C-alpha cells in the first residue's frame, strides 16, 4: 500500500478497533480482547509500511481538510515522527497483551471503556507523531488529553477523581493558556504553522518576545512534565498499570517531549536558539527538573510513584537535549525517546506484575520477592540498567549522544548534571532489585492491595511476565541497532539553517 | 439664556422622564412600577411630538386650493401611534403579570416577594422552575 494510505489507515485503525470493542462490550470479553490484539498488530503493520520510505529520506504526507484559512489538518511523516509512531504502535502490541493479563488478573471494572479509550489514545498519539503543522499537533494533543482522562479516573474512587482533576487541570491549563497562545502568536508572527527545516521564526521575532514564546511552548506542553507543571504525572499513577506503562511512560509523556523537540527543531530552528541563546534558561529549568525529581524519587516507597518521578527526570533529559540547540543534543533527545520508552515500560510492567502476582506496591514490602519472581526481576534489572545508561543497553547510546551534544555546545555544567543524575538513577532503581534478591523475605506481609483475594504464594502469570521480558530484550536490541536509529534521525538536523 | 429657556419643553420632558425612572427604581409595589414605566414612555412620546412641531404649523391636511401651507411634520406622530400601541401592550402584559404574581404570592410588594423566594430557596433549594409545589403554582396552573 502507498505510504499516504498507510498514514491515514494507521490513524484510523485504532478508532475502528475502538468501535469494535465498544460494539462487543462486556458480552464477550474474549472476542473484545481479540479485536484489540488484531487492531494493535494491524496498526503496527501499517506503521511499518511507512518506515522504508522515511529511511530512504522521503517524507510522505496526507492532507485531510482545511479548517480555517491557514489551519490545515495534515500529516507528514519525518524521521522524528516516524520514530515516535514506531515506539507508540510497537509497544502498544506488547502492552495490550500485558493489559489483558493485568486487567483480568486484577478483576478490574469497566474493561470495555478501558480498551476503547486506550485505542483512542493511541490514535491520537499517532496523529501527533504524523502532524505536519502545529495546528494538527495541537488538535491531537488535546484529543490525547481528553481520551486519557477516563483511564486515569478508571477506578472511579474519590482518590481517582481527585487525581483526574489534577491531571486534567494541569494539562488543559498549560495547553490552553500557554500552548495555544504560543500557536496563535506564531501563526500571526510567522504567517504559517507548517513545520519546516531550520524553523519558521528565524528573523520574524526577537528580544524578550522570543524568550516569552519559547516559554509558552516549553511550559505549554504540560505533557513534557517540566517543573513546576509535573504534578499530573504522579497523580496519573492511580490509573491501572498498563495505562501508566504505555501512556504515562510512553505515549502521553513522549507526546509532550516530542512536541518540544518538534517546536525547537522545526519552529524555532536550533540555529536561532543557538545564536540568540534564548534557550539557556530552559536548559537550567530542565537540569533542575532532572536533579530534583531524581531526589524525590529516592524518597518514594511506592514503586509506581518512584518510577513516575524517574520518568519526570528522564523526560527532562530530552528537553535538555532540545534546549542545548546542538545537533547532537537534538539527536540524543530523539534517541532517548525510544530508549527511555522501552526501558521505562519494562519497569512499569514489572511493577504491575508484582502487583498482580504478589499484591505488593510498596518497595519496603518487596524483600526477597526476586527469588520467587526471577523472570520479572531479571527484566527489571535490564530495564533499570538501560535507564541508568550502562552498556550494553540502549539507554547508554542516547545518554552518550546527549553528552556529546552538551560538549558540542560547551555546556560543561550540564554534562555534570547528566552524570550526577545517572548516579541518582542507580540510587533509586537498584534498591528494588537488591531487596528482591539479597534481603530475606518478610512474612508479616503488610500490603495495601484493595482486592480482598490475595494469593499467599507469589506467582508469575504468563501474560504479565512475557511482555517485560520482551521489552527487556528490546533494550538489548536497541543497543545493537542504535546505528540505524541514528542514521534515520540524522537528517532532521543535517540541513542546518535550511 | 434663551438657549436654555428656549428649549423649556425639553426640560419638561427630561423632568417627566426622570420622574418615571425614579418611580420604577424606588417603588416596591409592582403596579406602581408599571405606572412609572408609563410615565417614562410618555415622556419620549412627548419628545417626538415636540420635535415634530413647526412654529405656526397646522395639521398636515392641505385644504382645496391653498398653496404653501405651513404644517407640522406628520411623521413623528405616525411613529408615536405605533409607540403608543407598544406602550399599551407592555402595560397590559405587565399588569397581567402583576395579577398572576398577586395570585401566586398573595402580594404585590417586591420586597415581600423577594423574601418569600429566599425562604423558598432555603426550604428546598430553588427547584421552583422544575418541580411544581403546591405553594409554588397557583391552583389553576397545575397542568391538566
Amino acid at each position, binding site marked *: 500500500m502507498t505510504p499516504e494510505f498507510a498514514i491515514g489507515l494507521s490513524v484510523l485503525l485504532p478508532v475502528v478497533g475502538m468501535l469494535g470493542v465498544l460494539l462487543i462490550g462486556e458480552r464477550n470479553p474474549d472476542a473484545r480482547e481479540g479485536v484489540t490484539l488484531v487492531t494493535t498488530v494491524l496498526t503496527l503493520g501499517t506503521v511499518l509500511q511507512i518506515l522504508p520510505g522515511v529511511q530512504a529520506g522521503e517524507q510522505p504526507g496526507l492532507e485531510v*481538510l482545511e*479548517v*480555517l484559512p491557514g489551519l490545515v489538518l495534515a500529516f507528514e511523516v519525518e524521521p522524528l515522527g516516524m520514530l515516535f509512531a514506531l515506539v507508540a504502535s510497537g509497544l502498544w502490541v506488547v502492552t495490550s497483551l500485558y493489559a489483558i493479563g493485568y486487567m483480568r488478573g486484577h478483576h478490574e471494572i469497566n474493561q470495555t471503556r478501558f480498551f476503547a479509550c486506550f485505542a483512542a489514545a493511541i490514535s491520537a498519539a499517532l496523529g501527533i507523531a504524523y502532524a505536519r503543522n502545529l495546528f494538527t499537533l495541537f488538535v491531537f494533543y488535546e484529543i490525547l488529553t481528553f481520551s486519557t482522562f477516563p483511564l486515569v479516573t478508571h477506578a472511579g474512587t474519590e482518590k481517582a477523581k481527585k487525581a483526574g482533576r489534577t491531571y486534567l487541570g494541569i494539562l488543559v*491549563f498549560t495547553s490552553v493558556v500557554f500552548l495555544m*497562545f504560543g500557536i496563535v502568536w506564531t501563526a500571526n508572527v510567522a504567517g504559517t504553522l507548517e513545520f519546516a527545516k531550520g524553523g519558521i521564526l528565524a528573523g520574524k521575532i526577537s528580544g524578550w518576545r522570543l524568550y516569552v514564546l519559547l516559554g509558552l511552548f516549553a511550559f505549554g506542553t504540560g505533557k513534557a512534565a517540566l517543573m513546576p507543571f509535573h504534578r499530573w504525572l504522579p497523580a496519573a499513577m492511580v490509573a491501572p498499570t498498563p495505562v501508566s506503562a504505555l501512556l504515562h511512560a510512553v505515549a502521553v509523556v513522549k507526546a509532550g517531549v516530542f512536541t518540544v523537540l518538534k517546536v525547537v527543531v522545526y519552529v524555532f530552528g536550533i540555529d536561532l536558539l543557538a545564536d540568540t541563546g534564548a534557550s539557556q534558561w530552559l536548559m537550567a529549568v530542565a537540569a533542575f527538573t532532572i536533579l530534583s525529581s531524581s531526589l524525590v524519587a529516592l524518597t518514594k516507597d511506592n514503586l509506581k510513584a518512584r518510577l513516575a518521578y524517574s520518568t519526570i527526570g528522564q523526560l527532562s533529559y530530552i528537553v535538555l537535549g532540545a534546549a542545548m540547540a546542538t545537533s547532537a543534543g537534538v539527536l540524543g533527545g530523539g534517541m532517548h525517546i525510544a530508549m527511555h520508552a522501552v526501558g521505562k515500560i519494562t519497569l512499569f510492567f514489572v511493577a504491575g506484575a508484582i502487583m498482580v502476582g504478589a499484591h505488593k506496591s510498596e518497595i519496603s514490602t518487596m524483600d526477597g520477592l526476586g527469588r520467587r519472581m526471577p523472570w520479572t526481576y531479571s527484566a527489571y534489572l535490564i530495564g533499570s540498567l538501560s535507564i541508568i545508561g550502562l552498556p550494553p543497553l540502549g539507554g547508554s547510546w542516547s545518554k552518550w549522544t546527549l553528552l556529546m551534544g552538551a560538549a558540542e555546545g560547551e555546556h560543561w555544567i550540564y554534562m555534570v548534571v547528566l552524570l550526577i543524575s545517572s548516579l541518582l538513577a542507580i540510587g533509586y532503581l537498584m534498591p528494588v532489585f537488591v531487596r528482591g534478591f539479597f534481603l530475606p523475605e518478610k512474612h508479616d506481609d503488610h500490603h495495601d492491595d484493595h482486592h480482598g483475594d490475595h494469593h499467599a504464594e507469589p506467582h508469575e502469570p504468563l501474560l504479565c511476565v512475557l511482555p517485560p521480558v520482551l521489552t527487556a530484550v528490546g533494550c538489548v536490541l536497541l543497543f545493537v541497532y542504535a546505528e540505524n536509529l541514528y542514521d534515520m534521525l540524522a537528517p532532521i538536523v543535517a540541513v542546518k539553517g535550511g | 439664556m434663551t438657549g436654555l429657556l428656549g428649549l423649556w419643553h425639553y426640560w419638561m420632558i427630561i423632568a417627566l422622564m426622570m420622574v418615571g425612572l425614579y418611580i420604577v427604581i424606588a417603588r416596591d409595589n409592582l403596579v406602581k412600577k408599571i405606572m412609572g414605566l408609563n410615565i417614562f414612555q410618555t415622556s419620549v412620546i412627548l419628545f417626538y411630538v415636540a420635535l415634530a412641531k413647526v412654529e405656526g404649523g397646522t395639521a398636515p391636511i392641505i385644504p382645496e386650493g391653498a398653496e404653501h401651507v405651513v404644517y407640522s411634520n406628520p411623521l413623528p406622530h405616525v411613529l408615536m401611534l405605533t409607540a403608543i400601541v407598544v406602550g399599551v401592550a407592555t402595560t397590559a402584559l405587565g399588569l397581567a*403579570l402583576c395579577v398572576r404574581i398577586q395570585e401566586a404570592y398573595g402580594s404585590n410588594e417586591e420586597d415581600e416577594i423577594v423574601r418569600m*423566594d429566599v425562604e423558598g430557596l432555603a426550604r428546598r433549594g430553588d427547584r*421552583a*422552575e422544575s418541580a411544581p409545589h403546591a405553594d409554588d403554582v397557583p391552583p389553576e396552573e397545575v397542568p391538566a
Partner: protein
Amino acid sequence: MTEHLPALQVVVPMLAAPVCVLLRRTQAVKVFAVLVAWSTLAIAGTLLATVLDSGTISYKMGGWAAPAGIEYRVTIANAYILVLVTSVASVVLPFGLGSAGSSVPQDRKYLLFAAFLLCISGLLGITITGDAFNVFVFLEVTSLSSYALVSMGHGRRALMAAYSYLILGTIGGTFILLGVGLMYQMTGTLNVVDLSERLPEVMASRTMIVAFGFMMVGLFIKLAVFPLHQWLPNAYTYAPSTVSAFLAATATKVSYYVLARVVFTIFGAAYVFGELGLDRILIPLSLAAMFGGSVAAIYQTNVKRLLAYSSIAQIGYMTLGLSFNSLDGLTGGLVHLFNHAMMKGGLFLVVACVTYRLNSSMVDDWRGLGRRMPITMAAFVVGGLSLIGVPTTVGFVSKWYLVSAAVQQDKLVVAGAILLSSLLAVVYVWKIIETVYFKAPPEGGDPVAEAPMSMLIPTWILIGATIYFGLHTALTAGVASKAAALLLSGVP
C-alpha cells in the same frame, strides 16, 4: 415571487401567529408552526444564497421609496443572522415547545405557539429592516412575546423573572427609541442608508453623542452586556427549557447584530472608536463579563442558571471581538455568535430532555445520569467541550479568531485573558460532568429512561452542528468574515 422574499421572511411567521389562534387545536397548531418555521428557514437560505452571489437586496415596503417608506435591506451580514435565527427556530419547534417545564394547560398551548411565532418574526424583522424606527418596533414585538414566553415557565418565580425582564427590557427599548428620535431630529431621516450618509455632517454636535449614548445603553440592556445583564439569569432559568434554548440562541444574537450595525454602519468606526473611544469602555466590560459570568457560573447549583451565566460570559467574547474594531475581531464576534447559538441551544435542549424525564435541573439531582440517559449526557459532554473551546469544536474556531485579533493588535494581556477565562468554562462544565458520570444515582429515585427520540434528534442536530462547523467553517467563518468586512467597510 422570489423578489418578495425579504417581505415574506417577516410576514409569513407574523401572519402564521393569528392562524394558530384560529386553528386552536394543539396538534394542528404544532404541525403548522413547524411547517412555518421550516419555510422561513428555506426563505432565509435562499436570501443568503442570493446575497452571496448578487450583493445586497433592497425591498421597498408598500412601494414607497426610502426615506418616506420603510426599506427592507438584506446584506451578507444580516442574511447570515436570518439563517441562524430560522435554523434554530426550525430545530427547537419540533422539539415539542413547552413540553418541558411549561405551566401552560394543554388546551391553551396554541397561544404559546402564537407567541413563539411572533417572537420569530420580530427577530427576523429587527435583522432585515433598514429603518431605524422599525428596528425599535420589531424589538418590542420580540420582547413582548418573549416576556410572555418566559412567564409561561413552571412556578411563580417565572412570573417575577418575566416581570423584571419586562421592566428592564422596556427601559432599554425606550432608550433606543429616544436615541432614534435624536438621530431623526438631526438628520430628518430614519433610513439606515440615509442616516449613514447624513450623520457625518452633524457629527460635531453634542446631540449625536447623546443619541449614541442612549442607543448604546438600550442595546447593552437588550444584549445583556455586563453589568446590564441582571434580567438574563432569572429569565433563562425559569422559562420553559425549550424557550430558554431559543432565546439564548437567538435573542441576544440579534441585538448584537443591531449593535454592530449601529456602531459600524450608522455612526461609523472612525467616530465611535476614534472620537468616542468605545473600545476603552467595551473591552474592560467584556473582560469583566467573561470572568464575572464564568465565576458566577461555577457557583451555580442549577444547570439552567449555570448555562445562563455562561451565556453572559460568552456575550462578553462577542462584544470583545467587536471592540477590537478589526477584521479578525469582528469575524470572531460574528462567528462566535453563530457557534454559541449552536452550543448553548443544544445544551439547553439537553436540560429540556432531562427536565422532561427527571423534572429537575438541579445539579445534584443529575447524579449518575451518565448511565441512565447516556445519549443525552453524551450530547452534554460534546456541548460542554465546545463551550470550553476544545479543537475540532466550534468553540475553538471563535477562540482562534479572537486571540489572533488580540495578538495582531499586540494586546497580549487581553489574549491571555481570553484563554484564561475559557479555562473557567472547564471548571463549570467539569463540575457537571463529574456529577453525571462519577456520582452514584440518588437512592430510592425511580428509574429514569432515556429521553424520547423526538427530543434527542433536535438536540443532536444542534450538538452535531458544533462538531461539523468546528471542522467545516466555510459556512460560518467564511460568511462571517465576509459580513465583518462589509460591516467594517461602513456600507449599510
